[in-house]
């Protein structure tokens, strides 16, 4: 791993900015900084969001696991539990539909001039994050712990040592989903 590069703090901040610029550029070109495209996905009339996410996940999955096999990268799976992923995920989902952007694309929407994203979305997300920080000690002791499984990955859950045994079939399954979307003309 490029440990020496990872330790250079200011250079890393610059890299974060550069990666963000490319990310924002791609999100805007993909159309997902547009409220209509996000809502179209949730109403199941426009599958742009799913196509971008699936293509990104497949490409990323193959490359990152290859880097990992070569000793050039390590994984950082987020810890989770039923209480965090399911309940948090559903709250997020409702916010997704009500706002019509998500934390990445709301920043991109601001960049293309959407004022509802700036004064509604960004301000709201900041307030929501603050509310969570205030509730955190109480939630931490209760609901966030329900069904805790920690930093688990699918290969670990399936007790497979070689991650590729899971990566390849999952990649094929996701490609099949994309193929199905095209087949259905979505």
């Amino acid at each position, binding site marked *: 791993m490029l440990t020496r590069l990872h330790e250079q703090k200011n250079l890393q901040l610059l890299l974060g900015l550069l990666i963000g610029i490319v990310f924002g550029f791609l999100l805007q070109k993909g159309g997902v900084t547009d409220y209509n495209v996000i809502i179209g996905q949730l109403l199941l009339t426009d599958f742009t969001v799913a196509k971008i996410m699936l293509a990104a996940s497949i490409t990323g999955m193959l490359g990152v696991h290859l880097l990992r096999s070569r000793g050039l990268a390590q994984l950082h799976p987020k810890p989770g539990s039923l209480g965090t992923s399911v309940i948090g995920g559903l709250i997020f*989902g409702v916010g997704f539909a009500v706002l019509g952007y998500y934390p990445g694309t709301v920043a991109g929407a601001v960049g293309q001039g959407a004022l509802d994203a700036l004064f*509604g979305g960004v301000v709201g997300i900041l307030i929501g994050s603050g509310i969570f920080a205030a509730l955190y000690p109480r939630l931490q002791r209760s609901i966030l712990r329900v069904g805790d499984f920690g930093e688990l990955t699918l290969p670990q859950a399936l007790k497979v040592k070689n991650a590729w045994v899971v990566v390849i079939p999952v990649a094929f399954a996701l490609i099949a989903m994309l193929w199905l979307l095209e087949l259905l003309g979505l």
Partner: protein
Amino acid sequence: MNWLSMVRWSPYMVGIGIGILSWFAFLLSDKPIGCSTAYARTSGMLERLVRGDRVLKKAYYQKFAPVVDWEWMLVVGVVIGAFISAQLSGAFHVLWVPSTWAASFGTGPVLRWLVALIGGVLMGLGARWAGGCTSGHGISGTLQLAVSSWLAAICFFIGGIAAAMLIFHIIG
């Protein structure tokens, strides 16, 4: 350089581009691409401006210090990158009310603003509750095959589809 000024790229090209970008994030920065933690840190920074250093004692900000970090810079980059892209294609325009919203609920900016604010609050709360968003869980987490992320990403869409159907097919 005609393609830089195109309004839209194929979703597959964009997705593959984001996937490749994530290789560089892991290789060069040892980080998965994510966005929502940056909002939590900013919220902490703003709270610190008002309430002072005791904010730093909050358990959540012990875990996620309210400071500018790699991911925070990434979110700033997203605004800049989207602005450049929109400028190149002429898509940049100041907008208060998106057309899909206007078709069901009218062009009044106050209602749209209020609803966007409520949506933002739910999203901020949900993203921190789930420990990530559509980028951190939906793309970076699924590509790492993290169980938490697959579960969260599925729930994002279950909640999102149900709420969108309710808003546009029942209320609107």
